[in-house]
C-alpha cells in the first residue's frame, strides 16, 4: 500500500514516516507542497493521502483530486463514513485523510490512528516548546528589569525582584508584563 504524506512541515512529516515505517508493507512518499500534485498523482498512484487539515491549499487540493476523478484515486475522505468517532478524532487532531474508496477498513484504520497520534504528539511538543520559549523570554525581560531597578534605585537583586513582584500583585498583572513596561520605559528615557 502506498501512502503519500503532504506536509510542508518537514519535522512533522518525518515523524509520520517514522510511525509508518514499522509496517514494511507500506511505501511512503513525502511531498512538501501540494503544487503540481495533479501531474504526479497518476505516477504516484497513492492509496492513502494524509494532509494537514489547516493547509491553506486544501480546497485547491480537493478540486484537483475531484478533477482526476478516476475511481482508483483517493477521493473518499476518511476510513468509513459510519465510523464518525475516528473521523472526529482525526479532524480534531488536524489530520485529513483521503482514502481510495473500497480499501479495507482494517488496513487503513491503523494508519489513520498512527497519523492522529503523531499529529497530537507533534502538537504537544510544539506547545511545550512554545511555553518554554515564552518562559525563557520572560526570564530575560525580568532580569533586565531587575538590572534597571538595581541601577536606578540602588537596590540589591533580591529587593529589585520583590519590588517587581509586589507591583505585579498590586496591579493584578504578570511579573513579565510589569518588567516589560520598565524595560520599554527605560529604553524611551535613555
Amino acid at each position, binding site marked *: 500500500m502506498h501512502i503519500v504524506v503532504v506536509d510542508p512541515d518537514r519535522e512533522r512529516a518525518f515523524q509520520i514516516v517514522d510511525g509508518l515505517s514499522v509496517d514494511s508493507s507500506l511505501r511512503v512518499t513525502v511531498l512538501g507542497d501540494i503544487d503540481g500534485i495533479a501531474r504526479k498523482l497518476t505516477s504516484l498512484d497513492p492509496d492513502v493521502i494524509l494532509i494537514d487539515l489547516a493547509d*491553506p491549499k486544501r*480546497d*485547491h487540493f480537493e478540486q484537483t483530486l475531484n478533477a482526476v476523478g478516476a475511481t482508483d484515486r483517493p477521493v473518499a475522505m476518511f476510513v468509513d463514513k459510519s465510523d464518525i468517532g475516528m473521523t472526529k478524532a482525526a479532524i480534531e487532531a488536524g489530520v485529513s485523510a483521503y482514502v481510495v474508496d473500497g480499501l479495507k477498513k482494517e488496513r487503513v484504520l491503523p494508519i489513520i490512528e498512527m497519523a492522529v497520534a503523531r499529529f497530537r504528539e507533534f502538537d504537544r511538543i510544539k506547545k511545550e516548546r512554545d511555553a518554554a520559549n515564552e518562559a525563557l523570554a520572560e526570564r530575560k525581560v525580568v532580569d533586565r528589569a531587575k538590572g534597571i531597578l538595581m541601577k536606578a534605585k540602588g537596590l540589591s537583586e533580591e529587593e529589585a525582584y520583590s519590588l517587581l513582584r509586589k507591583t505585579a500583585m498590586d496591579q493584578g498583572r504578570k511579573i513579565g508584563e510589569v518588567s516589560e513596561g520598565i524595560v520599554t520605559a527605560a529604553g524611551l528615557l535613555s
Partner: protein
Amino acid sequence: MTEVSLGYVPLTDAAPLIIAKELGFAQKEGISLILTRETNWSAIRDKLSVGLIQGAHLLCPMAIAMRLGLGPIPRSIIAPIVLNLNGNTFVTSLDVARRLDEAGIGFNQPKPLGRWVIQQGKSQAFRVGVPYPISMHATILRYWIRSLGVDPKAVLDLRVLPPSLMREGLEAREIDAFMVGAPFGSEAAESADAVVAMTSSAIWAAAPEKVLAIDEEWADANPGTGDALVRAIYNAGLWAGRNENHSVLAEILARPEYLGVGASHIEQMLSGHLTLDPKGSIASVPDAIRFGGSNVSFPWQSQALWIATQEAENWGISLGTAKAAATETFRPDIFRRAMSETDAPLPNASQKVEGALGRKTTVPANREMSLGPDYFFDALVFDPALAE
C-alpha cells in the same frame, strides 16, 4: 453563559461573528462565543460535519450542498440568517486589464466584459480563480456567462485557490483573473500587479453571500440558544451596517488575531470607494458589500431557490431535489421566531421575486422595511413560484 463555537474564514464578511463577540452582542444574549479561525473552507465543512463546532460563517451554496451530501460527510445544516449581501470583486492581471482597455471596456460593465471573456475563452478557456468550487463566486460567474448565451463550461476554467494566493496565481500566469471576497479585491488592486474590473454586485445587485450556518441537530436540541445566537448576529450585523461604525469595524477586523490585513483595505469596500488599479483610479460602488438589519439578513427562501436553480445541473442532481434542500436550509421561520420579541422588521412573505427592484422600495412587513436595488445585469426576474 452558554458556550457556542463558531468557525470562520478571515474575510470582511465574518464581521457579524467577530463583532458579536468583540462588542458584547453575544454576551448580552447569554452566549460566550468561541471563534475558531480556519484557513480553508474544507476545514469548516469537516468540523461542522462531525459536530466539533456548532456553526460557522459559510458560503451560501455550501450550506445547501452539505445537506445534499455533496461533501465527504453529509450533515444537515441550516441557515437562519444571512450575514451579508455582495462583497466579491473580479480582479484581472495587468495584461488582461491592458487588453480590456484597448477594447474600450471600463469598470463594472458586465455585458461587454462578459462578451470579451467569452471571446477569449473560445480559443483557450479563460481561467478564473475562485476560493471554493461551491461558492457564490462560482455560481455568479457561471450565471454571468450563461446569461450571455454561452455554456460556462465551454469558456470558463474555474480554479480553486486560497484568497491569499490569488495574486501569486496571476503573477505565475496560472490564472487570468479571479473572483475574491473582501478585503482581498482591494488589497490586490493596491499591489501594483492587478486591476479590479468588476464588483459582483454589477452582476446581481443584492446577492446573498455568506450565511450563519448552524448544525440542524444542535439547533433542534437547543432552540433557545440558537435563537439567542441569531439575535446576537443580527444586532452585530445591524451595527456593522451603519456608516459611522465602518472605521471602527475595519480596525477590529484588521487585528492580527482576526484578518491580519491593513484596515484601509477593509474600509474601502465598506465605504464603497474602491481603488481599482495601480494608478489609483477610484470608483464609487455603494453596495460593494452590505451588512444590515432585516433588509440584509432575512434568509429569503427565494435566494436559496435561485442558487438551487442555477446549480442543480452542475451538481448533478435533479432540480426538485436541489429546491427541496434549498428551502430546508434557508430558515425564515427560525429568523422570525428569534426576532419576534424585538423591533426588527419582519416581512409578510418568506419568498420574493428576485431581481424586480430597480431602486430601494418599501415592502409589506410588520414595521417599516425596504429592500433593493436587487436587479440582475441581464434584467432577469426570478419568480421562485415559476422556477423550472
